[in-house]
């Protein structure tokens, strides 16, 4: 167990280093002189350019600059935002709870909706109900989050006036964004749970359980579901990335402050320290979350440790 966790931790190290190199290089990959970015769009005299270059340390060798960047980042110093003139990490941490709340709520909706629809479709296999659920799932997979969000706002905010259309704070402002964000993951999950449930329902131990006279609901919930859910848990972990990406769009539509919105605004304003910071932060968080998910699988399912 410890060996497995150590191995996974070690595997994450080169990826984390790679992420830091990439986010560092972003500034230098932009066509033109990086100094221009710090100067904004103002024309630059050669003397002013040299001053800025020195002030931001851009006149040093790239390796030295990277080392400086990475060692500061390790200590939580991601630089100062050009527009806000505040530490980048402060700007991120300020809006992080909103994004975390949105993503987790969407994950919950996806899990509950996806798993129950998948079970319903599997149990009703071959009937109109199965067909209907799968058709809805197909629509769900094909609807981009920004469109389902607009349709939800149109219906539940403007027509029925049940929920507010925008903003943050309180459960009633979380329902629509989380639903919009979770829908397509729910659809992916429903299809997966249905097919893995159908697989399991034909296995011998389930047939045996039925043959010895157990109530069908008991067979379904106690015997079949447990094994059918293993791929679903894996898929939930994978969907987290999609949800984090979808949060970027969702936050924009619902005018919610969040890390995604922050990143998009930073790109639009060409605020590069903030762009680098959000990219580095989001990718690192994603890698660490995946690591945690992997390790927890190993705890839940011992077979994984020995692969």
């Amino acid at each position: 167990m410890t060996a497995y966790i150590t191995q996974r931790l070690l595997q994450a190290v080169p990826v984390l280093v790679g992420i830091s190199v990439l986010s560092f290089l972003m500034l230098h990959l932009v066509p033109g002189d990086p100094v221009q970015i710090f100067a904004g769009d103002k024309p630059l005299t050669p003397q002013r350019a040299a001053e800025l270059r020195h002030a931001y340390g851009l006149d040093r060798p790239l390796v030295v600059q990277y080392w400086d960047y990475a060692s500061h980042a390790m200590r939580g110093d991601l630089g100062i935002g050009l527009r806000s003139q505040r530490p980048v990490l402060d700007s991120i941490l300020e809006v992080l709870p909103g994004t975390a709340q949105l993503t987790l709520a969407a994950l919950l909706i996806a899990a509950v909706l996806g798993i129950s629809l998948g079970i319903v479709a599997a149990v009703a296999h071959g009937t109109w109900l199965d067909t209907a659920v799968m058709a809805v799932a197909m629509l769900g997979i094909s609807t981009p989050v920004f469109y389902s969000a607009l349709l939800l706002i149109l219906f539940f905010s403007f027509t029925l006036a049940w929920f507010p259309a925008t903003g943050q704070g309180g459960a009633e402002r979380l329902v629509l964004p989380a639903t919009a964000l979770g829908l397509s993951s729910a659809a992916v999950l429903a299809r997966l749970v249905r097919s893995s449930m159908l697989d399991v329902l034909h296995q011998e131990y389930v047939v045996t359980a039925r043959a010895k006279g157990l109530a069908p609901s008991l067979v379904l919930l106690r015997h079949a579901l447990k094994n059918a859910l293993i791929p679903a848990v894996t898929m939930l972990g994978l969907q987290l990335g999609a949800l984090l990406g979808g949060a970027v769009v969702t936050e924009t539509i619902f005018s919610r402050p969040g890390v995604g919105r922050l990143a998009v605004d930073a790109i639009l304003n060409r605020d590069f320290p903030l762009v680098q910071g959000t990219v580095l932060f989001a990718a690192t968080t994603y890698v660490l979350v995946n690591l945690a998910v992997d390790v927890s699988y190993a705890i839940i399912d011992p077979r994984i440790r020995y692969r």
Partner: protein
Amino acid sequence: MSAPAIARTRPGSLTSPALAGERRATQVLARIIHSRSAVFGGSLLALVILAALAAPLISPYDPIKTNQRLSLEAPSLAHLMGTDRFGRDIFSRVVWAGQASLPIGLVSVAIGVVVGVTLGLLAGYYGGWVDAVSMRLVDLLLAFPGILLALAIIAILGGSLTNLMIAVGIAAIPEYVRITRGTVLSLKQREFVLAARVIGCRGAAIMLRHILPNVVAPLIVLATLGMAAAIITGSALSFLGLGIKPPTPEWGNMLAEGREFLQRAPWVAFFPGAAIMLTVLSINLLGDGLRDALDPRMRM
């Protein structure tokens, strides 16, 4: 010397599943035609593509020219999908927008496939440091959740049609590397590959003529479904203001414009969104049908 002659006529035909003959192709074709999902999705997609291609012929109005007197008119016989803030006909814009949104899907998938398959073939076939380097690269690309990688690339290159295609294409590379590499690894030790090597085929020939054909079926499925994802990502970036900029019509940026008038004039956002959904739906249905026909093991 007869061995090279044999190699020239039918190299590696011993048990190569890819070269098993036309019978299999006919079978697959029959299965595709019998798949309701593939036929329906394919026809719908053909209709969408045709409409985009025929935009100059079928769009009743100029998609760019504004007319303030017609601002935000509801759908009517004169304007099937209504008009937007600038009085432009939404139907005309939706049809023209296909000329931007569809190529994003096609070209970015092509970038992903070409780069991904090449890397996957090299990594799987040669192993060693080539494999190590490509897989670390894939790990790195996979470390970026969802559209974040595309966002980062757009941040560097700036938003335009070409950059959008590059960004979405690069983000799609890992999937193709993994599936190609996996297939190569499983085939490398099979008899028909060993036989090809014994009769003196070079690495490139073995990869392209003996191994690649076996990756084609899963690749077609993956690329089809990938195109749906690419269209969504492309329009999402335009929606965020990071892709194709107005007044050039694109489904994502039209939706963004319509968002401001959602309460007063819902049709402005509704129809471009419906166009994205229908296109993606048709591609997904086609992809599902193709998967069932080409690779029954992957069936959901």
